[in-house]
């Protein structure tokens, strides 16, 4: 074990994979510059050469296709997007080509493609630098979707993605980058499709993704002061989704609140809620609740931005409401924001 931040753990996984497999290479805008995508690709050029770590033209569509073609030819590309919002430019390649290839040609070939996409969120990132696109990608069959929360997962899921013969996208939340935790040394892959129990509880289940796990853990502290015991499940990967872990927890607590980093409509939270409604209905003692970004365009102005996202206080409030209770007039203080910017 060693102590690494979420971002350092990504760096550790990249270096480990490149050291052990000469077919692994990293491409993307800024991967070779002095900022090195929040340090995650720092020093890789010096260590592995410009051919395996290179900047690209600002052509997200074609560059995604280039990564797919290199993967088809036997290499293992890791394509990095410093803001997930730019993935919209690559959707044809991701969804019409990468997601289809294995199936469309009868299983004869695979596309071992890895995409890292960073969710920008907060500190005035605004409409086009803050989006969280997992729900769109979950909808179309053929691409795996991972959302690491801890340093062990940011390292381990990336390694699993690199080893996976299929296209995989990892959404890395910018606000998680400085969180420090224990990671295995040497690095170990974290298998897809296994949810993590982040906190045990008995009164309600909170299924939370990515940064919303952190907010939900803080919410659980608040709830504890109100004698509410929240269980927190982190799906870790959305495709494949660990249905059983979620259903087990809902069967135990009888109540479900889903908190996702994206919008709720047709979202990851909708899928998880539908799962519980379809397969755990008889366990439910109250209607399922969902939280996510407000159904509007992300604003920049601080008070508006704060209201746009769920936070520990609003999550705790929603959980209490789900239990038929409230803060009873004593609303807890707004949580302090650790991140001071700039990005």
């Amino acid at each position, binding site marked *: 074990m060693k102590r690494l931040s979420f971002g350092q753990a990504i760096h550790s996984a990249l270096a480990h994979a490149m050291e052990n497999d000469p077919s692994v290479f990293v491409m993307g805008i800024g991967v070779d510059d002095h900022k090195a995508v929040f340090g995650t690709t720092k020093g890789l050029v010096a260590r592995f050469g410009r051919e395996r770590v290179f900047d690209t033209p600002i*052509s997200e569509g074609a560059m995604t296709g280039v990564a797919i073609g290199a993967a*088809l030819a036997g290499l293992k590309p890791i394509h990095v997007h410093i803001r997930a919002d730019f993935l919209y430019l690559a959707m044809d390649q991701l969804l019409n080509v990468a997601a289809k290839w294995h199936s469309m040609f009868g299983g004869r070939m695979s596309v071992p493609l890895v995409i890292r996409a960073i969710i920008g969120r907060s500190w005035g990132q605004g409409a086009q630098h803050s989006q969280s696109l997992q729900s769109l990608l979950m909808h179309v069959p053929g691409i795996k979707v991972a959302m690491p929360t801890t340093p062990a997962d940011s390292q381990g899921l990336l390694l699993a993605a690199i080893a996976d013969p299929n296209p995989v996208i990892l959404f890395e939340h910018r606000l998680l980058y400085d969180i420090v935790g224990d990671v295995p040394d040497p690095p170990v892959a974290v298998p897809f499709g296994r949810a993590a129990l982040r906190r045990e509880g008995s009164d309600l289940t909170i299924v939370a993704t990515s940064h919303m796990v952190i907010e939900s853990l803080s919410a659980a502290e608040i709830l504890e002061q109100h004698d509410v015991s929240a269980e927190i499940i982190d799906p870790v990967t959305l495709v494949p989704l660990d249905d059983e872990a979620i259903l087990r927890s809902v069967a135990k607590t009888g109540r479900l609140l889903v908190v996702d980093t994206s919008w709720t409509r047709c979202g990851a939270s909708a899928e998880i809620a539908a799962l519980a409604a379809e397969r755990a209905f008889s366990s439910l003692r109250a209607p399922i609740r969902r939280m996510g970004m407000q159904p509007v365009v992300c604003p920049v102005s601080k008070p508006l931005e704060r209201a746009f996202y769920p936070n520990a206080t609003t999550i705790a409030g929603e959980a209490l409401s789900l239990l038929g209770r409230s803060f009873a007039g004593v609303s807890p203080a707004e949580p302090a924001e650790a991140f001071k910017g700039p990005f």
Partner: protein
Amino acid sequence: MTATNTRAVGRDVEVELYRLMLKIRLSEQRIIEIYPTDKIQSPIHLSIGQEAVAAGVCRALRSSDHLYGTYRSHGIYIAKGGDLGQLFAELYGKDTGCARGKGGSMHLTAPEHGLMGCSAIVASLIPVATGDALAARMRRDGRVVCAYFGDGAVDEGVFFESANFAVLKDLPIVYVCENNRYAVHSRVVDRHKQDKLYRLAEGLGLRGSRHDGNDVAGVFKTMRRAVEATRLGGGPVLLEYTTYRWHEHVGPGTDYEEAYRFPGESRETAQNDPITKMAARLQRRGLHRELAAIATAVRAEIDRAVVFAETSPFPPPERLTADLFEVVA
């Protein structure tokens, strides 16, 4: 003109080019015959009249050279060496098809012969081919990659993005634009002020040239020169071959009477049939008997392919959920 371009095409190669074109033509004519039976439940985009481009381009590539195509790819599938039985079986949606019935006419594949895949989204495999060429360069494995697309594909942004990257990285790729005058029912001149398509990416540094796509020996020679040059590190190149789509965009019929067509085209095409022209050339050399034998052999091969398709089983229902992901070891 370089020496390689003027280098004569040997008799054997000419005969082979003729055989490939005839195989494409007769196979597609058989598809037209079968189509009304509804045994082929897959949209077909015929390349009748365009056979010289497919034959000349593919014959100039090695089996290990990768090729990426479009929804109009029966021609390149056959010319790159794809199995004819597997082609017909794929059209029939059978389990023995080249994509096990999952792809159909628009998604042909024969990776064992270098035809990696074909896509129905215009231009979508141009960047994929470019990435394959990046891999060839990174591994220095001596492969050349060919992106094969129509004149509609140069309207898409990824064409330019890919061209820029290929030039930047000096990739071993030949971009082949098969200009059959129409993107669905839209004429090149209605989509581009600059209708010399081979010049479109000149500003990015992509060298291009235009050639007669109905002269199969000429296609072969120009493609061979391009492939040899890029294999030796000469970088990417764009070849535009002008040809003509005889049939409607999709389906077995013709639509010469429709307003989108240039007037007099059906006459023009009859006079410019690449197969007739090559046959005349070979007949002038006294190869009548050989040509007849080729036609007989090709027809027999098509007969066998159709029987194979007809007698093959459909995929079992459980195949529906297979193949979404490759199982992780």
